[in-house]
């Protein structure tokens, strides 16, 4: 057989749904038959032909796991998928989390828990001590808690209404844990969630001079750094790299991120 140079760019690959795991009333995880090599914190674009394409976090890589809340037309269609159905995936895309230090504090707000599961597994395999803080408005909106409980880590839960774990924001037990760290220079906070939560965590980390990697959300269109739709402004605490002038005020979540590293 003759050999052609394959040059497929970033065309979609087909994945087949193996299992559908219900996480809560609104959220399910699709567990695929195939793996997807990826770093924790990277994302993928999932295409349902004729329906649409959206970005999602990667919750597991071998096999690929994607955790999806039913919040719109396309995610509703995804919730109708059954074992044996096919989906089309582009990725992994973007910059993921990097392992840093010996103590990891992982903070997930709502669906922001999704990429942290893979990150927790990855950090534990590197011998890093992991604590996980999950927060949500109420207990029905906490996701993947059973999956985190299977791992050798300390899990802290908070809800705004007190229906599970501590009542209050996730930053409360986080600050307590930061204060108890043996060496803050060897620790890193990894977070994913809504903007308000990330800004609060950034301020907290600045106060204690602790490294953090925050994963930002934005409405994404092209996913390729071209359309500019997902640009955001990063907090002043982030040091703009000298070779990326103008990036702090026009940071492309799809391309420069989604994770930001402040040391």
């Amino acid at each position: 057989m003759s050999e052609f140079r394959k040059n497929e760019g970033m065309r979609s690959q087909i994945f087949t749904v193996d299992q559908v795991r219900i996480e809560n009333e609104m959220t399910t995880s699709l567990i695929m038959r195939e793996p997807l090599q990826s770093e924790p914190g990277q994302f993928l674009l999932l295409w349902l032909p004729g329906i649409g394409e959206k970005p999602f976090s990667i919750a597991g890589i071998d096999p690929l796991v994607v955790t999806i809340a039913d919040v719109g037309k396309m995610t509703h269609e995804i919730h109708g998928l059954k074992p044996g159905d096919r989906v089309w995936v582009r990725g992994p895309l973007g910059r993921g989390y990097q392992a840093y230090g010996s103590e990891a504090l992982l903070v997930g707000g709502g669906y922001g828990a999704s990429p942290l599961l893979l990150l927790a597994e990855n950090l534990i395999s590197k011998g890093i001590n992991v604590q996980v803080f999950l927060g949500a408005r109420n207990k029905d909106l906490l996701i993947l808690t059973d999956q985190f409980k299977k791992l050798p880590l300390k899990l802290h839960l908070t809800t705004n209404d007190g229906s599970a774990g501590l009542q209050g924001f996730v930053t409360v037990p986080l600050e307590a844990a930061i204060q108890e760290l043996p060496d803050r220079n060897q620790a890193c906070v990894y977070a994913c969630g809504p903007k308000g939560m990330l800004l609060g965590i950034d301020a907290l980390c600045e106060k204690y001079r602790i490294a953090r990697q925050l994963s930002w959300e934005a409405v994404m269109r092209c996913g390729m750094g071209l359309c500019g739709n997902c640009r955001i402004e990063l907090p002043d605490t982030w040091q703009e790299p000298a070779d990326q002038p103008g990036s702090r005020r026009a940071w492309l979540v799809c391309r420069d991120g989604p994770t930001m590293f402040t040391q």
Partner: protein
Amino acid sequence: MNNYPCKLFDQLTLNTPLILASGVSGNSDSLLVRAARSGAAAVTTKGFTLKYRKGADNPVSTDWGCGLITNLGLTNPGVDSMKYMLSAYVEKAGDEAVPVFANIYADTAEEFAELTRKTAALNPVLIEADLPAPDENLASEVTRAVCENAAGIPVSIKISPDCCRISRLAEAIRDGGASAITAVNPIPGMLIDAYAAKPFLSNGTGWISGPALKPIALNVIGELYQAVDLPIIGVGGVMSGLDMAEMLMAGARCVGVGSALYYEGYSAFSRIMNEFSAFMESEGYRDLDEIVGKIWWKS
């Protein structure tokens, strides 16, 4: 390092011949600032229309292997919002502001007339009008409508390569009063996923840009250069300093990059310019006049 200043018209000289092409990131003042600070000698806005356009649903683009395919459906907030974007750009860029080319799109000459009046009031250094179809009569009407309403601001007409009589089109644009021609727009194309048995883009078809477009652009630029004596803003698949030199030799006076920002990010500007300077020095060229259109010179 020599930056190779680029005289586009009597009233406009750019610091270098490398600019941000229309369509990439030009819908945000802060992204225009980022392009300027990364080394673009001028920045072109995304195409603005008279009214807001929501644009197409995802998927809107991908890398298919030899280039990109894109169809964002002309997403833009409408020309009235361009005013705020351009004033914010000037304020945020401060000393590092570079000239702005305002790209506009309309379906008819009448609509172009109104759109141009609104755009001219924002005082960009150049108005770049996207020709809706590569037709000589339409080119003539649109060019006149834009030039008559541009309040003396130079006008460039941006053309698509899918035209069989480039020289006639160029003459119609020149006779209509344009100061420049921008060539080329991406070329129509389609991507199909065989397993899905569907087109990949939500709109079905899109436009091909990136490396696949470069030889097509060079051909059109060459024809334009020979047909009319207007400065040509070359766009289409420029990824390196050598690509840039080739486009200038085909006849372009300056060169825009777009897809390169996908392949490399904003550092593409400085890398391409460094490579171009190294080429000019190694080949002993002192300024742009020594290479623009060089392949057509009879020596």
